[in-house]
């Protein structure tokens, strides 16, 4: 126990030294409700980046694509491929949802790692990736839930609810539970990964300011991409699952 408390004390000391600000928010008051201003600001930047780059690249499409158009065509093909693999032949209407999910999470994650947010000082809290906040990830996860319910209900009508007793009625509780675990796991996976990644980088930078954090930063970039892909793929998989016929 002594060892444990000792290590906890040193840990606390490290946190004090590193000055990590996690869970601190810049609050804005909107109509009696509080919002996390830093999340909104960074999300606006992310949205501006996405819309701006897409507008510039797709403004005047050429038959033989140039650099920017080529890249965006590659991204679109990638998104279509993911959607088609998970949803099947009727993937068309879901490309915007899956694609925006992937692009928003991906650009958010990478913005946390690549954009020098720390230059801008906030009175409270600090700017970081929007996916660093549980509100964002839960919002995206809930939208995914709504999306797959919508997909199932429009495809099969009320017969969609037949899937809850599909293999046997005994599995009804577990099938209902799945509707809660899906958004929960989606949101917490993304939130935890991004928060942990940023924390590790910040703590390492505060301990060893040079060279050592670089591999961790690259690992963070890798993780960020993987997490965006996982989120989009799982969202597509859930939508596809609720649309496919149950035998």
């Amino acid at each position: 126990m002594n060892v444990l408390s000792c290590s906890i004390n040193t840990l606390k000391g490290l946190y004090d030294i590193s000055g990590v600000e996690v869970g601190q928010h810049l609050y804005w008051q909107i109509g009696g409700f509080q919002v996390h201003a830093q999340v909104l600001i960074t999300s606006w930047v992310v949205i501006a980046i996405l819309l701006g780059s897409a507008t510039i690249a797709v403004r005047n499409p050429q038959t033989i694509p140039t650099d920017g158009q080529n890249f965006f065509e590659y991204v679109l093909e990638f998104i279509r491929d993911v959607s088609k693999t998970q949803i099947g032949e009727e993937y068309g209407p879901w490309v915007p949802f899956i694609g925006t999910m992937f692009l928003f999470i991906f650009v958010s994650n990478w913005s946390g790692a690549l954009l020098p947010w720390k230059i801008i000082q906030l009175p409270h809290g600090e700017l970081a990736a929007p996916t660093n906040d549980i509100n964002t990830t839960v919002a995206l996860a809930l939208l995914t839930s709504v999306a797959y319910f919508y997909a199932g209900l429009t495809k099969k009508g009320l017969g969609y609810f037949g899937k809850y007793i599909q293999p046997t009625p005994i599995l009804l509780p577990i099938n209902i539970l799945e509707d809660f675990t899906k958004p929960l796991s989606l949101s917490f996976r993304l939130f935890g990964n991004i928060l942990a990644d940023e924390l590790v980088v910040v703590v390492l930078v505060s301990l060893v300011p040079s060279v050592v954090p670089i591999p961790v930063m690259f690992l963070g970039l890798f993780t960020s991409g993987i997490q965006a892909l996982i989120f989009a793929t799982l969202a597509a998989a859930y939508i596809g699952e609720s649309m496919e016929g149950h035998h």
Partner: protein
Amino acid sequence: MANMIVASSKTVIPSTSTPTSTGAGKPKLHLNLPNLSLPKLPNLTKPQILSLSSSTLKSLVAISATSLTLAPPSLAEEFEKAALFDFNLTLPIIAAEFLFLMFALDKIYYTPLGNFMDQRDAEIKEKLASVKDTSAEVKQLEEQAAAVMRAARAEISAALNQMKKETTVEVEQKLAEGRKKIEAELQEALAKLEKQKEDTIKALDSQIAALSEDIVKKVLPL
């Protein structure tokens, strides 16, 4: 935040170690806890459940899912500095922003570029299909080309032959001319030679008469 992580880890550690630790360990735990000097210890049970939820069973997940909706407001009030699970208006705003982004990107990116790519695909496929059908045409064109080549070869050989004939005739004519000229010159030269011969013989004749007179005068002394 540092407080909260440390605090949650401290409360987690006793709870996980209680099954394995002996009875003597428990009082120690209680002795240690006051040292932590955490003012809101009772409230920490909720984050504790939250931090455990990812690794425990589904039932715990369900409990945490329900407690998620209840816990954050109290946390936000009491831990103003460290609110990880602080749900508020940010959530619906982000959802609305996401929907806006989805429609905007659909308008300026997915639909236009997707249509453009599909059109191009269709065009390329059409062109490919039309190219595959032209093998007969290609054969015909090849035959035409061969015919053109044959005609050209025949023409060239004819032209060559004619040219050869013309040149030989020309050369022969020039040769004949040259021969005639040379013969005429030869004739002329021969005639000149003959004339000279006659001249010298005439001159010699007249000299012979004089010489013989001289010889006679000298031989027959007077």
